[in-house]
Structures are given as structure tokens and as C-alpha cells.
């Protein structure tokens, strides 16, 4: 419990660090940052939005520390300011809606690729040096080394444009109304296949390589030799002696991978015009909608910290040594 509590305090500090970056960045800009942001947005904006923009970045009367505290206060009460592009919509509602799509896409892809990648890694390590191992290892290298942008564009080109098997964008058929109907869910799944395949391709290599390397390092341990010497079946030794222990460091590498997963999913969404955070962010960058760009950093940091915490909890559950600590 103490372990989890310590992690929670640390995550809180990390979140405040991200918020602090957000607070100071506009203040480091030369000139009057709000005016610059306001004019670079380009489009006609109502004067109220200038005021809203000032509030978003904590430009209130008073000394700097007071501005900082006001800013932190508004963030912790869930107020991220108002979007310039979608004025007067608050940033939280613009991003909150998109977050659901991103988490859905990301979560499913992570679970699928983690399960599949770990399994491939186990088998590859167990049959090290075999054809299977070579194919899996080399395939994993290729999959991880190609940028997510490239993977998504190539997958889209082949299956979306050339073969025409799958739709080229959107999360569902735009002519359908969102409803809990078989038709709508079918359309969701149909539109989700390409982004999902792309994201899994980007992610699976990393999980496979980590698991394979962890397994191989463990195969030299005495307790594996012992298990074999006892005459246990291969499958039993592989899964319950080697894989079980190799899984632990893999889970902690999952925590570090979450940042990559987020990045990959942002890019995939832009390419497939998927209505998640990535796409909102892309539109915000094009429109220089600074409050939304800053808000996404906070929301994604929070998402990542929550995911990290889930990994911490599962680590405690998987590793009995941590229970007492």
C-alpha cells in the first residue's frame, strides 16, 4: 500500500510539472503572448474570446506567483479555458468527447498487441534459433522501426485506396445516427479495423522483442533446468516457469511504452480522420488553437499517469514480493 501511495504522490508531482510547463511557455514568448496567439489564429474572433484566452493562460492581475496559483487552481477544478477555434466551447468538452475515441482505439490495440506480442515472444525465445524465431525477430524489428505515420499511410494506401476493402476515414458511416443498434456498431467495427491493424503493427514488435529477450535471459536460470530435470512437460516449463517470471519486466516496460502508444495513436487518427484526440489536435495545430494544444498535454499526461498507475497496481498483484512492502 505504501508503494502505491508513494507512486500516487509522484504522479501528482509529475502532473504539476506538466501544468507548470504550460503556465510558463506563453510567458517566455517575446512580446504580448496573448495578442500573438490571438492574431495567429487568423480568423475573425469575438472580443470576448480575447478575455477568455487571457484567463486560460492565467493572465490575471497580480504578481506571478498569484497568477500561477490561480492557474493551477483552475486546472484542478477541471477548467482548461476555452477553445479559440470552437469558441465559446470549453477545452474540456472539446477534448473530453475526443478522449473516448482515443482511449477506445488505444486500449483495444494495446490489449490485442500486448497479448499477441507476448505470446510470439515466448514461443520465439523457447525455440530460439529456429525459423520461427528468425521470422518473428526480424518481423518485429521491421514493425518497430517504421514510423507510425508511414505504417498508417501504407496500410491506408493498400487496403483503403488500392483494394478498397475498408473505408478511408471516419469512425463510422457519417450518414448513420449514433445509436446502440447493430448497424451502427457494425459500422464502427468496420471503420475501426484499419486504424486498429495499423496501431497493432506499430506496437506488437516492441512487446515481442522485450518478451523474447526477457525469456532468453531467464532460460539460463537454475530453476528452469531443475524444472526440466523433474521431467515436467515442455509446455508447463515454458509457460509456468519461464514465461511467468519473464512477464514481470514486460509489464513494467508497458508503462514506458504508453507514451509511444499515445503518440502512435495520435498519428493514426490524423491519417484515418478518426475523431479522437489526435485529429482534434491536428485541427488545433492548423488553426493555432493554443488552449486546445495545451489542454491536450494535460489530458494526455493524466491519461498516461492513470495508465501507469494501473500498471503499478498489476505489478503489485503479479509480484508477491511487493505485497508486504
Amino acid at each position, binding site marked *: 500500500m505504501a508503494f502505491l501511495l508513494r507512486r500516487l504522490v509522484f504522479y501528482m508531482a509529475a502532473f504539476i510539472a506538466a501544468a507548470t510547463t504550460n503556465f510558463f*511557455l506563453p510567458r517566455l514568448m517575446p512580446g504580448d503572448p496573448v495578442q500573438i496567439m490571438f492574431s495567429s489564429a487568423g480568423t475573425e474572433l469575438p472580443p470576448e474570446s480575447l478575455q477568455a484566452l487571457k484567463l486560460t493562460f492565467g493572465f490575471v492581475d497580480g504578481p506571478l506567483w498569484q497568477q500561477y496559483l490561480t492557474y493551477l487552481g483552475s486546472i484542478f477544478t477541471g477548467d482548461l479555458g476555452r477553445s479559440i477555434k470552437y469558441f465559446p466551447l470549453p477545452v474540456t468538452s472539446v477534448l473530453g468527447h475526443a478522449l473516448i475515441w482515443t482511449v477506445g482505439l488505444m486500449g483495444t490495440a494495446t490489449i490485442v498487441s500486448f497479448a499477441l506480442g507476448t505470446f510470439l515472444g515466448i514461443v520465439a525465445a523457447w525455440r530460439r534459433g529456429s525459423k520461427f524465431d528468425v521470422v518473428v*525477430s526480424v518481423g518485429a524489428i521491421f514493425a518497430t*522501426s*517504421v514510423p507510425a505515420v508511414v505504417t498508417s499511410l*501504407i496500410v491506408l*494506401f493498400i487496403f483503403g485506396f488500392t483494394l478498397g476493402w475498408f473505408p478511408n476515414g471516419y469512425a463510422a458511416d457519417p450518414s448513420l445516427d449514433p445509436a446502440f443498434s447493430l448497424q451502427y456498431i457494425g459500422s464502427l467495427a468496420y471503420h475501426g479495423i484499419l486504424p486498429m491493424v495499423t496501431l497493432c503493427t506499430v506496437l506488437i514488435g516492441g512487446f515481442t522483442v522485450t518478451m523474447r529477450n526477457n525469456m532468453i535471459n531467464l532460460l539460463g536460470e537454475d530453476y528452469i533446468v531443475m524444472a526440466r530435470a523433474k521431467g515436467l512437460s515442455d509446455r508447463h516449463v515454458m509457460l509456468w516457469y519461464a514465461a511467468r517470471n519473464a512477464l514481470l519486466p514486460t509489464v513494467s516496460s508497458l508503462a514506458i511504452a504508453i507514451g509511444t502508444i499515445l503518440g502512435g495513436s495520435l*498519428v493514426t487518427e490524423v491519417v484515418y480522420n478518426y475523431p479522437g484526440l489526435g485529429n482534434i489536435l491536428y485541427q488545433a*495545430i492548423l488553426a493555432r488553437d493554443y488552449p486546445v494544444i495545451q489542454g491536450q498535454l494535460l489530458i494526455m499526461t493524466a491519461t498516461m499517469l492513470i495508465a501507469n498507475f494501473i500498471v503499478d497496481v498489476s505489478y503489485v498483484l503479479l509480484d508477491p514480493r511487493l505485497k508486504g512492502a
Partner: protein
Amino acid sequence: MKNLLQNRKALIGLVIIAFIVFVAIAAPLLTQYDPAARTGRPHQAPSLDHILGTTRIGQDVFARLIYGARTSLAVGFGAGLLITLVGTALGIISGYRGGKTDEIISFFTNMVLVVPNLPLLLVLAAFIGQASPLVIALILGATSWAWGARVTRAETLSVKQKDFVKSAEMMGEPQWRIMTFEIFPNVISIVGINFIGSVIFAIITEATLEFLGLGDPRAISWGTMLYNAQKASALSVGAWWDILTPCFALAFLGIGMSLLNFAVDEIANPRLRTGNHLKRWSLLVRSGEGRL
């Protein structure tokens, strides 16, 4: 180095990278076109005149590809070097000094590790405005050192216990000297892996930032090629050469770097080799084959 040349993966990786470096350096000899000038009609398909076709505004795609390789390589290796430098220095200092220094550096390292990298870079790049490749390299160096610092620190902790470090301490060598001449040479394999990994990361991230519209659209690099092609809806209008060219170039470079990375990893950690080393284990593992 000798080990590196004997490893087949490393060799293929090195050949790929050498090829790209050669093409980048020899760019003016390989094409007569100026990569920024309009030299043809918009979106011409590949032909003898323009072997990879033209872009939306009539620039030669092949010329942009080979001149763009310069930017991608320069940013990749420049930022990679910077990331490695910062990460190694912080890792060795915090691992060797220990105590308060270690606590402070480790705290910041762990903090940077849990803040998602791409969104942070997006915010930085957005405030800088159309970031040139040089600026992108600098902000990558400033934000991406955490992983390297962590692994270097762990390695330093174990090297620190060795006798030769103890004896250097007893002879009264200054701390900076112990860190640079005693510790650093002994963590060099970790530094190498960190460097190659950082180069891959920098190349991918530069392309991603530019693709998302945060780069300088006039710069000639593979990322801006992707950005301009995507903005011109190259796939929907059937101009596949415009968008697939930088795609394959990035994939090719990424694969070359990763093969090298994998090979260095294998050399540093012999158990990972797929070849027929460690006969005993191959035999043991093989006996399990086909009985899954």
C-alpha cells in the same frame, strides 16, 4: 567494432545507412533539379523526366527525396548525439555521486519519463512556431534524455563497485576524471545502444512533428514531404508517388538503424544471439522444438 562487422544484421544495417548517407552527400550529382523549384506540371506520374513524379506544385519528388535525406540524417544524428550526451552525463553523475545529487536527478528523470513525449513536443513546437529542423533537433535533445539517463545510471552503479574505481579513488583522482576516464569507457555499450535508439527516435519524431504541421513547410525534409503530400490529399487524387516516396525512405532508414540496434544489443548481451553460439542451450532449446 570487429564483432559488429561479423554480425549479419549489423552489416545489412550499416550498408543501408551508408547507402543513404552516400545518396544524401552526392545529391547534386544525382539529379539536375533544384528540390525547391517548380520543374514540371503538378502531380505528374513517374516518367523518364521525373523518375518519381512531381508534387502538387510541380517540384521533382526524387530531388526532394535525396536532398531531404540530408535533413533527416542531420537531425537524426545531431539530435541523437545531443540526447545521448545529456543522458550519459546525467546518468554517470547521478550514479557515481549518489546521495542528494542522485535523488534530484533521478526524480527529474522519472518525471520526464511519465510525461508523454510527443504531446509535450507538440506544445513546445507550437509555441516556437514553424520550427526549423535545427530547432526540432534542439528541443528533442532537451526533452528526450530520460531513458538514457536511467539505464546509464543503473550501469554506473554496478561499475562503481569495481576495484579499479576504488583504487582510482584512493590515489586521489578528481571525481570528473574518474567519471570520464574510469566509468565512461566501461558503460560504452549502453551508451552505444542509447545513441542508436536515440537516432531512430529523432528521425521518427522529426518526421512526425513535421507531418503534423509543426515544422517549417519550406524546409526540405522527408517530414515536410509527407506534410505537403497529405495536405494536397495525394492519396485521394491518386498521386501515390508523392506520399509513398518519403514513406518508403523513412521505413528504409528506420529498418537500417534498427538492424544495427538489434545487433549491438546482441553483442552486448550474448545470450540474445540467434546464431549457433552457446551450443548447450541450443541443444536444450531444440529438444523442445515441435512439441508445443
